[in-house]
């Protein structure tokens, strides 16, 4: 089961500080019930061409306080929907961090990552060790290991699947 999480590969899509949930998905799209339609507007304000360039497996790399603001679970949901395999940030706002694992999207905290990673670089992520290897420079960055509780949620496939396991 673990190898699900100890070699996530993907190209980096790099963002700055304070990307709040309104920047990930604007409040005006929250009445859309279909996540696929909603995901068409992912990062629309900060990077209008994002949904055209993003590829399956890409990794969002961000600086401080990623996902602050509204508690909307739609934020990690649209990232997952467009194919993001993992989000790495220097720090996360607490609700986003929790929501990401709840829906089965891994999130990793790596200090100063945006100093070392540039757009498009291939990354290898190990959630268990909390490490990121940058292919091109062969540099390894060490972040915080993902807490066991969060790995359990991911292993189950998100909080709902985890809940079903608990009751059965």
């Amino acid at each position: 089961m673990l190898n699900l999480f100890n070699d996530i590969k993907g190209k980096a899509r790099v963002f700055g500080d304070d990307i709040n949930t309104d920047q990930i998905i604007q409040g005006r799209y929250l009445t859309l019930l279909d996540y696929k339609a909603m995901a068409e507007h992912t990062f629309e304000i900060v990077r209008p061409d994002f949904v055209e360039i993003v590829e399956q497996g890409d990794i969002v790399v961000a600086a401080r306080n990623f996902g602050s603001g509204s508690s909307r679970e739609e934020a990690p949901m649209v990232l997952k929907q467009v194919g993001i395999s993992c989000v790495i940030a220097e720090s996360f706002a607490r609700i986003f961090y929790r929501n990401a694992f709840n829906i089965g999207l891994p999130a990793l905290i790596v200090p100063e990552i945006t100093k070392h990673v540039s757009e498009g670089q291939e990354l290898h992520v190990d959630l268990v060790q909390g490490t990121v290897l940058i292919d091109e420079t062969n540099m390894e960055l060490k972040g915080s290991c993902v807490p066991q509780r969060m790995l359990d949620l991911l292993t189950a496939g998100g909080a709902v699947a985890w809940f079903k396991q608990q009751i059965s």
Partner: protein
Amino acid sequence: MGYTLAEKILAAHTEDGKADAGDIIDAAVDFLMVHEVLGSRIIPVLEEMNFEKVWDPSRVLVVNDHWAPAPNAESALIHMKNREFVREQGIKHFGDVECGICHQVLAEQGLVVPGNLIIGSDSHSTTYGAFNAFSTGLAATDSALILATGRIWLRVPESLRFDVTGNLSRRVMSKDLILSIIKELGTDGANYQSMEFHGPTIDEMTVGSRMTICNMSVEAGAKSCIMPINKQVKDWLGERAREREWTAITPDDEAMYIDRITIDLSEDPIEPMVSLPHSPANGEAVSEIDSIEIDQAFIGSCTNGRFEDLKIAADIVRGKKIHRGVRLVVTPASRDTYLAALREGFIETLIEAGAIVTNSTCGACVGGHLGVLGPGEVCVSSSNRNFRGRMGHPDSLVYLASPATVAASALKGVITDPREV
């Protein structure tokens, strides 16, 4: 060894009575608040869970408030789903589109008392800390799990203690205090932490002013924001939660805080503040900024759409006319607030000065309806978030301020110090 307010309240909700900062606990929730996110996101999660019955239909408040009444078919459908859920599950507390903004409605209906653990499907659920409760915002999946089980896992937060003394001077409001604190902390300065407020200034504050501070704590990343009770809270509970029993919670003297911040307003007076686009942490004293022309002035939201906010706005515009070309949109936080302001004549005063008074809704705060901004438009707003695109077009600009500053700015057409009008 002593405990903070957050630790004490959370400990009382665990099976073994333990909750030390950093622990992961499994807690029994007293109350859950959900709004439109129920119809749009929680119900699909519940379906996936094969959910049948709410753990306790008397401990849930459902509110249709973000788009109220529905401005389009999408939000109308979500409201229908909420109504159906309330009917089928026999939910005891329901506020439909006429009642107002969730956080104000929950407090007005006496649904929070000291010592409670309350979760809301909305980040500003920190507001209820003004009533000596631990409350925080989570999203759809966690809300669904609570609806099914009444339980939630939480990491017990470290606490950051504030002791505030001295008076806020004329036309300086608790909004100015919290904007200046967020300026110092930054948008993640209290991330994962509980803010705890003490001191004579907080003890003397109205319920509304206290709610404003707890409401905006989340803009510094806080998980909760808790205050000891005061006379005003006691009176409020006496009126609105008469039949409920509660005990006030105080922290221990030896409680461990991650940091203690002392604010003495008599030594360092706070001026009217404004947060420049696009972050609540971009605070500046209004007196220090260049002249900024506005298109819209907004008084409303769960932060500052309450009775005292409408009162100070009415006092400022009474007998005057707002600046030509400026739209002053006033959205009372709830129907009760609206009625109280109406009886006092504030609504008439505001309309006479040129304001548009809307029904109670989140409305303009979330760029939903009743005051959405166009490209390049500038708004000074009493709400809590000035993120890019929050109130409408991505190229619009939002400045956050107190309702006094918003009202003064509406009169002058530029962002104005309320002490100057």
